[in-house]
């Protein structure tokens, strides 16, 4: 069945940051330069071409964009300056929007003002919500930070965190399910037996925690930075979700928990400052182009890290009222960051990337066992 070309697709993708794809003349240097590109997952060349031709369905059902980590080698090698790495980034943004059933991702990615308005609205609602909760249902006194009568009692925060976590997890899971449906249930891919899914399940945590594929990129710096950022973020998330009580009580320092907190705070601040610096300097290919969503992501991350550190310092040094206010400001950053970024924007790749590696492995395994035909489009006919 012929795939219908949609010449307008390229316009849509330009809104997601894939600007230079028109320059590509399909020489394939990018795919040759890439350590991860291998038959049948040939990228960025093929993704570039799907985009040029407007093969929307082929692009939507492709795992390729998630198998790229944007080390920038391809963009450096491109003889026409078509920035294939940035196109892959743009395609990932578009795919995030395609997977998202609410349509919110599309809106946030394509409109800077919508994203700004969304962040501010959630921030203000969060601020107002916590303030009114503090006065009406909490301790009611801004100058009590922890212990009995605390303005924001730990159990309440705990309850809020878990509720939000479950809701966001559910939203992201629905999007992941859609990703599975697009990529693994397309007409190009025959169904894969459940046993294979189970046999390779461990790939998910393996790649989630180690990002070992990223290490194979020729340029190791992005992998190292990314790993530190990811581990710091994960540590902080665990501390907050599980050990909030130990983190918030004070004013003495609970070293067994706080030492982890300090390390991850250092990790978060350092890596986000490095990223901001790189994006301003633009000397590496992967930092040459910055979409609005990249700045929003980095801005929120820095804001949250710094306000978190400040409220911690204020609390330990005996300024409970200032600590409480900073804490609410901190939450006004945390909540929009998680609510908007995890299911609808950049953070979602924490799920999509390991899933793509897992799915690709399943397709290859199924092919190797000869149970199902190759999970990719038919190869071109040899030219006589």
């Amino acid at each position: 069945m012929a795939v219908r070309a949609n010449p307008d697709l390229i316009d849509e993708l330009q809104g997601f940051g894939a600007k230079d794809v028109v320059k590509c003349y399909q020489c394939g240097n990018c795919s040759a330069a890439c350590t991860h590109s291998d038959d049948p997952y040939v990228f960025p060349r093929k993704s570039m071409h799907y985009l040029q031709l407007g093969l929307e369905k082929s692009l939507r059902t492709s795992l390729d964009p998630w198998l790229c980590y944007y080390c920038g080698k391809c963009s450096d090698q491109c003889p026409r300056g078509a920035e294939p790495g940035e196109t892959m980034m743009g395609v990932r943004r578009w795919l995030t929007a395609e997977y998202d059933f609410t349509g919110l991702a599309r809106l946030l990615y394509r409109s800077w003002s919508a994203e700004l308005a969304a962040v501010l609205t959630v921030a203000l609602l969060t601020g107002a919500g916590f303030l009114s909760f503090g006065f009406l249902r909490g301790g009611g006194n801004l100058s009590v930070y922890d212990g009995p009568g605390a303005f924001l009692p730990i159990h309440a925060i705990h309850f809020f965190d878990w509720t939000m976590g479950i809701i966001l997890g559910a939203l992201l899971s629905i999007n992941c399910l859609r990703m599975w449906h697009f990529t693994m249930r397309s007409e190009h891919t025959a169904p894969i037996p459940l046993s294979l899914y189970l046999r390779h399940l461990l790939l998910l945590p393996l790649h989630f925690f180690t990002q070992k594929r990223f290490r194979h990129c020729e340029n190791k710096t992005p992998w190292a930075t990314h790993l530190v950022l990811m581990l710091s973020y994960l540590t902080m998330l665990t501390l907050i979700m599980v050990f909030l009580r130990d983190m918030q009580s004070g004013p003495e320092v609970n070293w067994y928990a706080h030492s982890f907190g300090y390390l991850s705070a250092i990790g978060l601040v350092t890596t986000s400052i490095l990223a901001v610096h790189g994006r301003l300097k633009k000397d590496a290919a992967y930092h040459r182009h910055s979409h609005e969503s990249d700045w929003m992501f980095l801005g929120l991350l820095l804001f949250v890290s710094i306000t978190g550190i400040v409220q911690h310092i204020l609390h330990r040094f005996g300024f409970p009222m200032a600590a409480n206010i900073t804490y609410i400001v901190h939450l006004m950053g945390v909540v929009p960051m998680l609510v908007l970024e995890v299911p609808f924007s950049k953070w979602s790749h924490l799920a999509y990337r390991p899933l793509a590696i897992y799915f690709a492995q399943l397709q290859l395994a199924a092919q190797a066992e000869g149970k199902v035909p190759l999970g990719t489009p038919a190869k071109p006919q040899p030219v006589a």
Partner: protein
Amino acid sequence: MAEERIGVYVCNCGTNIGKVVDVAAVASSAMEIPGVAIAHSYKYMCSNPGQEMIVQDIEENKLTRIVVASCSPRMHEGTFRGAIRRAGLNPYMLEMANIREQCSWIHDDPIAATEKAKALVHAAIQRVKFNEPLESRTAPMCPSTLVIGGGVTGLTAALELAEAGQQVYLVEKQNHLGGNVARLDLTAPYLDSAQDILRNWISRVERHPNVRIFLNSELIELKGFNGNFKPRLRTEDGELLELDAGSVLVCTGFKEFDASRIQQYGYGRLPDVITSFELEAMLRQGKLQTKSGKQPRYVSIVHCVGSRSQEFHAYCSRVCCTTGLKYAFEIKSALPAAHISNLYSDMESFGKGCEEFYRKASEARTSFVMFAKNQLPMIREADAGENCSMLITVQEQLSGEEIELPADLVVLMVSMEPQQDASHVARLVNISCDKDGWFIESHPKLDPVATTTDGVYIAGACQFPRDIPESVTQGRAAVARILAKVAQGNITVDAVYSEVQDKLCSGCRTCFSLCPYGAIEYNAEKHLSHVISAVCKACGCCAAGCPSGAIKVRHFTDEQICNQIEGVL
């Protein structure tokens, strides 16, 4: 023959000959042949020291005839003839033995090859003994030129010749000048107007006192020979006119491929499938629209229509890739919202400024869809309710997908073909056509505008698909060749040609039908055939065919050939 003193020179040709043939042995065996006064072998006979060796030997040893055993005479016969002329010998007192192409290059066994080389040298020695001194002659040269074809090549050539002060007769079959370029809108890659380029050229040609233009006219006969042609034209009024022209320049151009021959493109059946020339006409009129008068939203440009195909033309038409890219710009500027796709099998936008042009077309959002040469796209009408009028199905090579492209207007980049009457014109002016019907040049690299008929030149797209700059360059190159002959004032007639011995000729005219060059005239009064020496190429067909043995080819006499054969045996 005792008084003849023959010098034999055996060439090593670096290692080309020397590595298989024992050249010293060949030289010393030649010494044993009666009449040979001196025999040498040398590394490169064609080099200056090699030639000097011959010159010096002739002077010091009073040599009368020379044999050079080296490469093919095609390569260096002229070199060695020049050398012995410098030493005071008649150039025809030279004989060459080809021990490279006919010996060392084709044999591995050094012993047998050396024996063969000895035999070839022996044959040359036996022949050279009977060589006769010959002199080339000169004939007067008429300075005017007949230019056939008033396209961009013919116009350029006519103007150039006229500016040089020479009379030009410009014959054009159509009722206007300009040829195929007159059908174009803009030219690639600088997007200059073709009409502007032509208008200037045409008005200068029309005003020039040295150019006589014959529109709606045709060449019907070309008599005479190099320097003294007598072309006969049928003019606009149906009159027959005989002219004098020293040279003939053929620049009859090309015609386009009949696109309806490729069924699956639907040309002639689908109203909005048009050829590149039809698009040019639309662009010139400023009316870029479908047959139903709508603005096309999707325009597809299909490349290699008739070119590079097993079924039609194996050659590449060369100009269509860049022209297709040009359409992307022209259509974009007329209809900014239109989507343009190029369906191609290889993109060959060569030449100055063209790679940049390709890049710009790409950046202007033209998509490039690659099909396989053996799997052409299929164009069909779209169903009602579609947002386009046609759909093109392509097995796309770079994505590996079978894709369907929407189209409202499809432009077929039709290939260039020889003119319908190219073989007729070739016969008239006595030149040849290749298997595709293009006129054949004298040498593809070293003599690209001359033909095998002296005084007849070819230029532009009648020889092979050419773009405008190439056609103009060729037109001017041919003019340079013609003016060089005009400047000499005379034409040189080669000393080697056939002669009819009148007393033996029976007037049977067998030779007349055998001569491939039209060099034989018949004198009806005397019942005798006569060879026009200026036209004769000394191929020997007439001599071989003459039932009375009345024809003798100078430098290829029976005596010379028989002795050469005996020599090799």
